[in-house]
C-alpha cells in the first residue's frame, strides 16, 4: 500500500502507518452554511478527514458533495459519503466525476438507510446498484478509466475508496466474508458501525486478521460516545444493527445525575486505547453525533493530537 491511489490526506496518514482519526459532520437541514462551518471548525486539526453524511437516516439535508466542498474551502478534508438509495448509476458516476473535479479525494460507499426511516417515507427509492457495486464502480472508474458500460472516462477520478462494515448486524458469521467481498470489490479503507459490544468486535477483528483482511485494507473502528442513558436505550432498541450491551447501559446509569456524558466519553476513550493496540485496527472513526464541539476534548484525552502531517 505504498503507492497512493488518490493522494488524500487520509490515505497518506494511513499509508505512512499512523493511527488514523476521522470525524463526522452531518450537513444542515437547509442552506445554513454558517452552522455547517461552525460544526466543522470544531473538528479542524483534530481529525484526518471528516465524513460528510448523505441524507443520513433518509432525512433531506444539504447534498453531501456540496457540504464536502464547503469543508474543503474551510481547510478540512472531507470523506464524501454516497448512498445508493437516491441515485441511479448515471447520477452516481456523474456525481463521482463532479466531486473529484471539485477536489474531493475520499468517498465512502453505502447502500443507505431505507427511506421509510426518514422524513420522506412516501418517496420512491432507487437502489439501481448496491454498495458493493458502488465500490466496484468507483474502483473501475479510477483504475481502469471505464464507466460501468465499459466506455472510457476522460480523466479518471482518483478517489480513496471507503466502505462501511457492521460487525453487529446479522448473520454474524457472514459479516467478515462480506467485508472481504467489499475489499475485493475495491475498498481501500473501511469504517465500522459504532462499536459498543467489545467482545463481539474483538471476535470480528480476530476473524478479519485471520483472513488477512487488515493487510489489504485499512480498518477504522467506529466510536460514538454515549451522551445519555436515553441515547443508549434508543440506540439499542431503535437503531437496526446496533449492539448496545446491557452492561454499558448499567454503567451509564450508575454514573449518576450529570455525570453520564462524562462516563460515555470515558468508555469511548477506553475503547480508543484498546483499538490503538488491537491487531488489524488502523484507526478510529469518531462519530460524535451533534456533539462536534466535544471532539477536540476527546481527541486530546485520547492522545491522538496533534494529527500527523504527511
Amino acid at each position, binding site marked *: 500500500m505504498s503507492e497512493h491511489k488518490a493522494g488524500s490526506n487520509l490515505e497518506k496518514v494511513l499509508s505512512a502507518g499512523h493511527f488514523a482519526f476521522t470525524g463526522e459532520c452531518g450537513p444542515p437541514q437547509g442552506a445554513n452554511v454558517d452552522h455547517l462551518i461552525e460544526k466543522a471548525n470544531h473538528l479542524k486539526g483534530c481529525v484526518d478527514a471528516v465524513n460528510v453524511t448523505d441524507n443520513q437516516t433518509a432525512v433531506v439535508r444539504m447534498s453531501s458533495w456540496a457540504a464536502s466542498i464547503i469543508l474543503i474551502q474551510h481547510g478540512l478534508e472531507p470523506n464524501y459519503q454516497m448512498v445508493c438509495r437516491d441515485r441511479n448509476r448515471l447520477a452516481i458516476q456523474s456525481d463521482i466525476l463532479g466531486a473529484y473535479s471539485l477536489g474531493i479525494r475520499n468517498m465512502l460507499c453505502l447502500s443507505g438507510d431505507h427511506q421509510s426511516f426518514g422524513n420522506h417515507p412516501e418517496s420512491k427509492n432507487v437502489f439501481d446498484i448496491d454498495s458493493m457495486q458502488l465500490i466496484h464502480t468507483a474502483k473501475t472508474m479510477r483504475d481502469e478509466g471505464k464507466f460501468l458500460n465499459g466506455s472510457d472516462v476522460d480523466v479518471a477520478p482518483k478517489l480513496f475508496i471507503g466502505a462501511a462494515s457492521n460487525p453487529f448486524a446479522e*448473520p454474524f458469521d457472514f459479516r467478515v466474508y462480506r467485508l472481504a467481498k467489499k475489499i475485493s470489490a475495491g475498498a481501500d479503507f473501511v469504517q465500522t458501525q459504532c462499536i459498543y459490544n467489545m467482545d463481539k468486535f474483538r471476535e470480528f477483528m480476530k476473524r478479519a486478521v485471520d483472513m488477512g483482511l487488515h493487510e489489504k485494507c485499512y480498518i477504522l473502528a467506529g466510536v460514538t460516545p454515549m451522551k445519555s442513558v436515553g441515547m443508549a436505550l434508543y440506540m439499542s432498541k431503535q437503531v437496526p444493527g446496533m449492539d448496545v450491551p446491557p452492561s454499558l447501559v448499567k454503567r451509564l446509569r450508575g454514573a449518576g445525575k450529570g455525570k453520564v456524558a462524562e462516563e460515555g466519553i470515558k468508555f469511548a476513550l477506553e475503547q480508543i486505547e484498546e483499538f490503538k493496540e488491537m491487531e488489524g485496527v488502523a484507526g478510529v472513526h469518531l462519530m460524535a453525533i451533534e456533539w462536534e464541539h466535544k471532539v477536540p476534548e476527546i481527541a486530546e484525552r485520547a492522545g491522538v493530537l496533534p494529527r500527523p502531517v504527511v
Partner: protein
Amino acid sequence: MIVAESKPIKELLEMVKDFKRILVVGCKGCVTVCNVGGAKEAAILASTLRISGKKEGLDVMVGEHTLERQCDPEYINELKDVIGDYDAVISIACGVGPQFLSERYPDTKIFPGVNTKFMGGAVEHGVWAERCAGCGTCAIHLFGGLCPIARCSKSLLNGPCGGSSNGKCEISQDVDCVWDLIVTKMMEQDRLDELTVFRPPKSWTTARDGGPRKMIREELVK
C-alpha cells in the same frame, strides 16, 4: 398469483355516487384465489351497493357478472350484450382487468374495485407475501432459490446490509430479511463460495425500468 385487496367501501361509493346502473365484474383468476375479486366477492359488493343506494333513497340498479378471466379479450367479450345496460362498471380483477374492459368498451366508465398489490402467494391461511418483482431475468438460483430483488427492501444483490437484525429487515419487524434467509440457507448447504462472488450491477432493461413491456411469441401469433 397476483395478490390484491379490496378498496375501502367508502372509496368505492364515492367513485360511483353519480351512477344509477352499476355492473360489478369479478374474475375467476388470481383474485378469486386470494378472496378479493371472485363471484362471491362480486355478489357481496353488489349487495352492499344496493343496500347503500336504498339507504340513500336512490333507485340504484346493480348487476354482477364474473368472467373466467379479465386479462383475455375472449372472455371480456362475454359482456358485450349486457354492458350497454349499465353506465358504470366496477372491476374487481387486478389492474389488468379494468384496463382490458376500458379498451374493449370505450363508452363505459370503468372503475377499479381493488388495489393490486404484488405477485406472491399464500404463506398461511389469510396471509400473502410478495415473491416476484417481474424483473424479466430470473436469477434466484444464485441466491438459494430466494429473490433479493423482490424480497430485499433495497433489492441488494450483494447483501445483507447493516440493518439486518434477528432475521428481520431494518424497515419492520414484520418483514423477514431475505438476505438472512439466503445466507443461512447457503451456509447450511456449504455454498459460502457462491455467496462471496461479486454480483455485478443488474441490467434493468428487462424490468419495468426498460419501459412498458410486451411479449411476442411468433409461433403463437396468427
